[in-house]
């Protein structure tokens, strides 16, 4: 008895109810990649919705244009410039990825390798930018997952002392302005100020830390996305090695593996669109 004709061998010409049809005209691998991405989209959506709920539950929230306003090598405040650059790098790597997939469809090995290589560079560049951003927040601004030195004023007032980082004694501020509590040695410098308007006018208070959820959510969500980018770069490198050693030439399926990795890579870009929206734009 022939035991090699097991349940795994399905003839495409068999009827639909015998497993022969392909109602979606897509291979199993591609379809499963799509459904994995759907589930991953729910994961990210869950995180971003949690961010939205917690942000709305706090009386104030650090203004992103203040928190993310530095650019390597440039002095002063450049709100959102650096994250826009990061977005462009990731968008461009999505374009190089789509070109790699296209070259794969016409079995052009050199083209696939070239565009895949550019995609890897783009992904690595994005990770480098993120490393710089995190280093700035953790190393220089001393934000942690449970201490958020970025607070937002809820009333108008006047500083009674300076910190040597742009705030001088006598400087005025308005409700809605975001501030950073600098750290000197082991101590956060919570400057004293006098309220100038409202029910508490004349009272002397000191700067308070911002909502601690900010740091936790920021590091967790951008970290989770960054980890996706990192695994994407690793998978791209493996696929690139396979392309160069002719693994996919023999399969004669139009470099379908490149297409599947491409889906994952575009998804990472897609998630960034919404991370960018929630953390930096709104």
């Amino acid at each position, binding site marked *: 008895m022939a035991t090699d004709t097991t349940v795994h061998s399905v003839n495409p010409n068999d009827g639909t109810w015998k497993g022969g049809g392909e109602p*979606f005209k897509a291979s199993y691998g591609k379809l499963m990649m799509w459904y994995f991405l759907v589930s991953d989209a729910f994961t990210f959506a869950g995180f971003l*919705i949690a961010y939205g709920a917690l942000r709305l*539950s706090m009386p104030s929230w650090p203004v992103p244009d203040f928190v993310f306003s530095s650019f390597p090598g440039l002095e002063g405040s450049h709100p959102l410039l650096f994250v826009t650059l990061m*977005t462009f790098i990731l968008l461009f790597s999505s*374009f190089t990825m789509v070109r790699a997939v296209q070259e794969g469809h016409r079995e052009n090995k050199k083209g696939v390798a070239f565009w895949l290589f550019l995609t890897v560079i783009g992904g690595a560049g994005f990770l480098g930018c993120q490393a710089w951003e995190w280093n700035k927040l953790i190393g220089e601004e001393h934000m942690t997952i449970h201490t958020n030195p970025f607070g937002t004023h809820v009333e108008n007032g006047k500083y009674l002392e300076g910190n040597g980082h742009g705030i001088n004694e006598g400087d005025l501020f308005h409700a809605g302005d975001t501030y950073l509590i600098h750290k000197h040695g082991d101590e956060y410098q919570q400057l004293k100020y006098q309220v100038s308007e409202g029910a508490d006018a004349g009272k002397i208070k000191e700067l308070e830390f911002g909502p601690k959820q900010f740091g936790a959510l920021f590091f967790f969500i951008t970290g989770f996305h960054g980890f996706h980018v990192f695994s994407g770069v690793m998978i791209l490198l493996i696929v690139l090695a396979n392309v160069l050693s002719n693994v996919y030439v023999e399969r004669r399926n139009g470099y379908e593996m490149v297409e599947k990795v491409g889906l994952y890579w575009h998804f990472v870009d897609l998630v960034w669109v*919404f991370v960018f929206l929630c953390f930096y734009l709104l």
Partner: protein
Amino acid sequence: MASHSYENLKKKFLHTIILLAVITVVEVFIALYGKGYIVEGVHWNHFWMGSLMVVMSLVKAYFIIFIFMHLKYEMPGMVRSILFPTLLLVWAIIAFLMEGKYWGHQRTTSGDDADNQEYVPTGENINRISPDTFIM
């Protein structure tokens, strides 16, 4: 489809990436302009500014999913099986953002609003249910 030729697709991808880049620039411009970073004193309504940027992000998502991820050219059944489940998120967003607002309300009013006081056990009713109750 005629538009599926190599050169046409290449052009289409190039147009898509340029469009995505332009939308991104406009989004960042709106975020900065509306808060008065470019011309001082400008203050746009936060709600409408936010809604505009959400819509623009959804447009970006459309182009990434339908052109780059090629979903536009897949079988309709497959497209539905991927997109329909995500409609559940509409409710999740509405429900949790409302919940977040409610938490915020609780945070700011607890203390001076007697109706919103947290339940604090006093020990008065501690003997009301005795272990004997459960012996038949």
